[in-house]
């Protein structure tokens, strides 16, 4: 077939190598195109909008970068966020994403291709996923073969685990960080294989790009030392590795310290100590090898023992003293929760409250990876079959990332590429083994006995088994494509700023309440009005409504968030003092009881209570007070008094008791919690309703002034 096609196109006269290149190029280009196209569901279905929460902040900063130049961006002190603390944007973000987008924008505009900066942002993630396809191909090619590379590249193009963070509009760090990470791995493997300074430097540069774009670089700077250490233990350490690692680490570390947000962390925090330790170990190892080559074995052993004992004691003491003096920063909470899944839940409510920090369920492994879950061990097996320096690296990568992905659902993103690489290796090797067997019937058989040894591995119905296996793999691969497309379309292409639901007659109903409300704020409130909301909506509020907010998604100050949690969870009069203290003018709540939108503030309320109660000022807020007498989290008549009197409850359910939401149900029937609310008839004392969106999803309240004559 293919040959006929090639002949027809007049390419039949090409040499075998050229044909192979052509096929590879075709497959790769198609994979790249596909990876871009499959991420456009949301743009086609809704419009070219930025999605979710964090991307809005990234978009806002990118705009600042494009409009005012790099230095203004670098020194940007944002007085609209975290009122009244403010936030130094330049020093608290990874600028890689914004700089990349701005660079793309400037290049395009230089050539007079006038693309709106918003569109650059929207389409940046799909663009980089195309690049990722190429890098995965190169990486797998280095590790295994061209065939495995092509399979892996095709898979990474459509794997849902990666699409979930890189659809058009999902303008987030992860969108480019996966590309950077794989690029760093590729250059590292190249450097480790060749021992060339050029590749090591490229690796350091790729690492710098990675550091500038995502906090997940910590995974990388631990994985590469781990690789070096493993090679050392398995006796594979060589001058190549020595050159590669020393250059990569020293240049990479100096470069990474140029990112203001990273600063001195690479030489101070525990997360980076493994890399430093391995760097030191490399020097010792090399020195010891040098000594051993130049000394008699007896002398060497004596020297070796003394030095090792002395060194271990010194290192232990230094580490202990440094930690005690606080020179080495204690392990940060996020990292602890990686190692011990229950750590965050028990200690840091603000980390546990984020749904993407929750442990991964088995179902979501299958949902995000499908076929790869089964093919992964196959690939792992083939990697173990022929160990090389590069193979060891991917094995380490796969083992560590599968652990981390199990701890935190967000890290599925790190797992997805290696799953593709491993499955690519697995599928490619399987197919190339059995394909041969099918062919052996047609072509190899006539050639007859190649030798008695070959004959001995023969078994009956070899060709049939091969056919079955190839068919099964083909079916699996086909279902994988369908699954990926379905998941992308159904689960990962919702902008979450515009909601869609199916009506009774199957029509798509669009809820555009968020933008409606943000625009209301933008056009109806004073320019420097302060809006209080739960932190989830902070980025959107600053970006779309351009109003000052109290807390946002950059959850750097637990006390401040806790203060807002207290305001939401306390009774009105207490909330009022907190709101006055923070100069709040408007309060915004998200309410789903009318429309059935389940991730609303009442469902998040428990976190507000927990976070609010986690600081000394909020000691009066106890989680148990908000449960009904039977210990359930309810909003109906059984709900506790604290629940009924909390500002959040009142703001969400104000006037809701008059509304009929579903037929056959009493008024004030909450469609998310499926309960009839318990407190229907109440008035608000300290706030007044200012705006309620069409489907009641966003409700905005204005904080009243103090009573003029002293009495409420």
């Amino acid at each position, binding site marked *: 077939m293919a040959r006929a096609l090639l002949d027809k196109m007049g390419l039949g006269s090409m040499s075998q190598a050229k044909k192979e290149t052509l096929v590879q190029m075709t497959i790769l280009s198609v994979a790249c195109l596909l990876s871009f196209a499959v991420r456009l569901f949301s743009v086609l279905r809704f419009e070219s909008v930025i999605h979710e929460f964090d991307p809005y902040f990234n978009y806002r900063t990118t705009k600042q970068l494009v409009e005012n130049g790099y230095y203004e961006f670098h020194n940007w*002190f944002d007085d609209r966020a975290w009122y009244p*603390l*403010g936030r130094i944007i330049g020093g608290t973000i990874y600028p890689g994403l914004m700089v990349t987008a701005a660079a793309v924008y400037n290049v395009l505009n230089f050539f007079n291709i006038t693309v709106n900066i918003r569109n650059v942002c929207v389409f940046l993630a799909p663009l980089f996923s195309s690049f990722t396809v190429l890098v995965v191909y190169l990486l797998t090619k280095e590790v295994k073969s061209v065939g495995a590379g092509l399979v892996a590249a095709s898979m990474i193009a459509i794997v849902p685990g990666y699409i979930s963070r890189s659809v058009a509009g999902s303008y987030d760090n992860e969108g480019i960080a996966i590309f950077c990470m794989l690029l760093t791995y590729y250059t590292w493997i190249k450097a480790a294989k060749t021992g060339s300074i050029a590749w090591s430097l490229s690796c350091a540069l790729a690492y710098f790009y990675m550091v500038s774009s995502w906090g997940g670089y910590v995974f990388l700077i631990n994985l590469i030392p781990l690789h070096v250490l493993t090679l050392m233990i398995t006796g594979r350490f060589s001058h190549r590795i020595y050159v590669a690692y020393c250059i990569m680490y020293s240049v990479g570390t100096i470069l990474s310290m140029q990112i203001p947000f990273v600063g001195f962390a690479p030489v101070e925090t525990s997360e980076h100590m493994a890399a430093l330790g391995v760097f030191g170990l490399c020097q010792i190892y090399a020195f010891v090898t040098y000594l051993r080559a130049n000394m008699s074995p007896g002398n060497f052993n004596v020297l070796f023992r003394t030095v090792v004992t002395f060194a271990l004691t010194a290192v232990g003491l230094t580490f202990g003293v440094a930690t005690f003096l606080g020179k080495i920063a204690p392990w940060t909470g996020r990292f602890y929760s990686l190692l011990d899944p229950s750590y965050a839940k028990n200690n840091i409510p603000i980390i546990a409250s984020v749904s993407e920090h929750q442990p991964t369920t088995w179902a979501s492994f299958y949902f995000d990876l499908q076929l790869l879950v089964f093919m992964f061990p196959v690939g792992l097996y083939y990697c173990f079959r022929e160990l090389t320096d590069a193979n060891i690296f991917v094995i380490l990568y796969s083992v560590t990332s599968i652990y981390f992905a199990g701890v935190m659902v967000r890290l599925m993103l790190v797992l997805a590429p290696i799953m593709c690489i491993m499955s690519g290796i697995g599928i490619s090797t399987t197919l190339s083994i059995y394909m041969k067997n099918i062919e052996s019937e047609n072509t190899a058989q006539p050639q007859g006995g190649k030798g008695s040894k070959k004959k001995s591995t023969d078994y009956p119905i070899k060709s049939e088994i091969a056919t079955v296996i190839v068919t099964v793999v083909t079916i699996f691969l086909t279902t994988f494509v369908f699954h990926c497309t379905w998941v992308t379309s159904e689960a990962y292409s919702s902008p979450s700023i515009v909601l869609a639901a199916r009506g009774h007659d199957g029509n798509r109903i669009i809820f555009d309440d968020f933008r409606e409300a943000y625009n209301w704020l933008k056009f109806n409130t004073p320019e420097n009005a302060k809006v209080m909301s739960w932190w989830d909506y902070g980025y959107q509020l600053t970006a779309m409504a351009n109003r000052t907010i109290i807390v946002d998604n950059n959850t750097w100050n637990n006390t401040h968030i806790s203060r807002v949690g207290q305001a939401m969870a306390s009774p009105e009069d207490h909330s009022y003092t907190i709101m006055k203290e923070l100069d709040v003018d408007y309060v915004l709540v998200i309410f789903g009881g009318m429309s059935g939108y389940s991730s609303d503030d009442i469902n998040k309320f428990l976190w507000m209570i927990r976070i609010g109660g986690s600081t000394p000022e909020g000691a009066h807020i106890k989680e148990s007070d908000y449960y009904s007498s039977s210990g359930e989290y309810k909003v109906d008549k059984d709900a506790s008094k604290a629940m009924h009197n909390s500002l959040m409850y009142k703001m969400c359910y104000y006037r809701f008791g008059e509304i009929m939401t579903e037929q056959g149900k009493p008024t004030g029937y909450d469609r998310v919690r499926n309960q009839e609310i318990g407190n229907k008839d109440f008035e608000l004392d300290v706030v007044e309703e200012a705006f309620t969106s069409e489907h009641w999803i966003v409700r905005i309240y204005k904080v009243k002034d103090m009573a003029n*004559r*002293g*009495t409420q």
Partner: protein
Amino acid sequence: MFRSVLFLLLATAALCRPRTLVVLENILTKETHSTFLADLASRDTEITYKYATDSSLAIKKYGERLYESIIILAPSVAAFGNALTPADFLDFVDEGGNLMMTASGSVGEPIREIAAEVGVEIDEAGTTVIDHMNYDVSDEGDHDLIIADEFISSSVIVGSDPAPVVFRGVGMAADLDNPLVIDILRASPTAYSHAPDQDILEYPLAIGSSVLLVAGMQARNNARVVILGSHDMISDRFYNVKAQRFGGAAEGAGNRAFAQAVTDWALKRNGDLRFSAVKHNKVGEEPSDAAYRITDDVEYSITIEEMQNGQWQPFQGQDVQMEFVRIDPFVRAFLVPDPAGNFKVSFKVPDVYGVFQFKVNYDRTGYTHLYSTTQVSVRPFRHTEYERFIPSAYPYYASAFSMMGGLIVFSFFFLYHQEKPKTE
């Protein structure tokens, strides 16, 4: 031409003069309180007289207040004319109008209601303030013509060194939850509020010093309300009482001076403050919209004027403070006035970035609550504003450069030095 200009001038003058409505109980009030009304008329104000039940009584027209102040000398009115309700008068206060009114033993429902809404409870009808120790010699036996001298210590409200006043009327009690009520005149510790001819079976509304004789309230919008517990205390008759305590010497009633002072206060002719020209800038620079940097030296100035006897004068208070606030005040400094009432302070911005407010919150009894906030941002250093070389880091610079030098020397050595072959 000249006439029209004159007319215009007059019209403007008339417009500028504060307008006061005096609501009288009946035609007799003009007689009994003639001195008070004459004193009122002698002030630079435009006065309109109306009877409480007059059907043309109006305080608003087209949504605008018709008067700056209202004085109600109609304690026992049962219902105002033109269907005016207490709520109308309270709205008047909420819109910034001042209100002064008298009560008496037979106080009417509207007055009682207005009083209750501003945080003052008037005792039941028929009660009166009784003091068996401090009554005037002309008392008729109920000991309810009392002499009171427990004035609030604020010369802005009661004038300096007020003489004791003669009082006969109803007692009042302040709402403890309302922080805005001002106890202008309290009864002596031996007084109590009760009906004189009844046995005391229940605890009275108030006794001793908690009995208010004259109560004031300054609302949050700085509108002022004064309630006199006695309609008689500002009458001609009481102005002329000798005020001789039983068993003491005649002191001469201070009623007239007291009434003058309290009226001046209520009409905002005294103790009214206003500010203007809030300016802040870096020392030696013009004011600008740019954010301040941490550790900048900043100047702040504000001009405050005080109303004294109907004239705006530069305010000369020595205790005005400016705070530089980000939730908590980081700087709190006294503002120093010059003779023109310009208050100034200069200070160093703290080494903390964020959104700060210059806040002047001057709240003194009797004075308008002066509150001014100006929001500014304080940014951290830009990347070019740090010191390039830190003295304490010189060892590190030295080590870095020596390392570089060493590397170059070593490289040269390594590349161009050749060991002599040992085989020779």
